[in-house]
């Protein structure tokens, strides 16, 4: 099955194409607040480079985030509306799972991490490899890296951007030595994970597909400003 995968949730924007086990294209670039401007043109170029048209694509995979709220919205809206307009099925894939899949190492558990904007907090999730698949263990986590220590063992692989620094913090906090593996969300991995779901007969409802923000917007600051005489 030819599957197109995209992810615009973070530092890199990615477009990939797989056909069953084969990677036909895997294009990524450093995002510079230009994902909206580029993404559809990049999808078109990636398809053309692989000798394909959108009509050849049989399913669409979309990275759901977490990450940049604006970035995720671009990817998810493009993914679902491409699916809607072309009549293809769509599958959302959490970006944390994409990172974990990229960094998987035998049967070692994986904890993938994405930084929350500015500040020290992180989004995280833990996964356990089950054959070709990944099972998430427990809930998504949002908070300080130190709060993760209870979920990690010496055999855990930490996956994400700049994770060596987080591994250092964890070692200092709990003495646990985790293996740090740099990983970025790739389009081909998104496509691959979506293909797994399609093969199991799973797909998402096109119109209701929404981002995985994991964090509410801070409306309080706005409300306070409004009350303080700016009204």
């Amino acid at each position, binding site marked *: 099955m030819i599957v197109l995968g995209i992810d615009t949730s973070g530092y890199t924007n990615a477009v990939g194409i797989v056909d069953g086990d084969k990677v036909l294209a895997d294009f990524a670039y450093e995002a510079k607040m230009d994902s909206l401007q580029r993404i559809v043109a990049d999808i078109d170029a990636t398809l053309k480079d692989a000798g394909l048209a959108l009509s050849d694509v049989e399913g669409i995979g979309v990275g759901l985030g977490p990450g940049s709220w604006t970035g995720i*919205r671009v990817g998810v809206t493009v993914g679902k509306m491409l699916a809607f307009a072309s009549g293809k099925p769509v599958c959302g894939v959490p970006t944390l799972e994409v990172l974990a899949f990229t960094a998987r190492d035998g049967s070692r558990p994986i904890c993938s991490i994405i930084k929350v904007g500015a500040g020290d907090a992180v989004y995280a999730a833990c996964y356990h490899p089950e054959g070709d698949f990944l099972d998430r263990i427990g809930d998504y986590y949002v908070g300080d890296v130190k709060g993760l220590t209870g979920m990690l063992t010496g055999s855990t692989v930490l996956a994400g951007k700049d994770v060596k620094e987080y591994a250092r913090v964890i070692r200092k906090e709990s003495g646990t030595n985790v293996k740090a593996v740099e990983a970025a969300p790739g389009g081909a991995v998104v496509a691959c994970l979506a293909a797994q779901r399609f093969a199991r007969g799973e797909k998402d409802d096109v119109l209701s597909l929404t981002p995985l923000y994991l964090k509410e917007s801070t409306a309080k600051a706005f409300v306070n400003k409004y009350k303080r005489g700016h009204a």
Partner: protein
Amino acid sequence: MLVLGIETSCDETAAALVADGKDILSNIVATQFDLLKKYGGVVPEIAARRHTELIGYTVEEALDKAGKTLDDVEAVAVSSMQGLIGCLMVGVAAAKSISYARGLPLIGVHHVEGHIFANRLSNPDLPFPHVCLTVSGGHTLLLYVKEESSYELLGTTLDDAAGEAFDKTAKFLGILYADRNTGGGRAIDELSRKGDRLAFNFPRPMLRNKTYDFSFSGLKTSVINMFKDRIAAGKKLPLADIAASFQEAVVDVLVVKTLRAADEYGVKAVSVTGGVSANSRLRSAFEDACAAKGVAVYFPSLSLCTDNAAMIAAAGHARLMRGEVSGLRLNVVPNSPLEGLDERDIN
């Protein structure tokens, strides 16, 4: 030529099907009223999240209501200029995707140009040149419209938009009803009908100022101060009279300056558009003033006054007819001057 219009520039997710730039086959608007009430205004991040949730459903409903499918759509027009950046992005992302998947031309539209076209949709006989007053929650602009898509900005608000002044005053007066889908403008309009618009003489900001600019935040402050003074003096607070008098001050300034512009530019037609153009007192005041001067006045139908996608489809259609098409790299421009639009690359 069937155009799908998409509009997500502020807090309304809208989609519409318009044929030949003039026949509205469907006009769907999903308003985020519950969120407005909760936060007292538009929180851009929350609005953008809602757009993402609603955009697919809104487009599908527009197609269903029109009895059409994407096979029938021949072009996609989307608000890409002027509005909240995160909100605009959702509409543009959706429009681009539909355009690419179907091989349809894509046209980025300036949101305010949409409002100007809203009046052409309702009044195909609206002549050129004319003076156009666009008044909404987000904009107050006075324009000289020489010919189609040729705009000269005469004046704008220096602070609050007129619609914003209505919303904030309604909120201050406590007349926003939690159980009804009514914005501040409509609440004041309805309450004012029971009040005496001459009961209080609020200042008419910048009425005698030589420019065509407006200012409304000072007027709102006057209402608040008068309110506090009356409470301190133990006097009654006749809300209907206060609302009607506030409304009269806004209407007065808008009518007088628009007609002054019409006079200076020698036009015989005035177009009043945008959400505030739905106001019944504004309409009757303009009708009276224009009749006295022998000038024709045009308003959009009520459903086309507030933000909608039919106006975007109509504006997009006009641009498409002139061969102005955007590419797949169409980006959003949150702050985009209307002037010189015809000379700028809309990509």
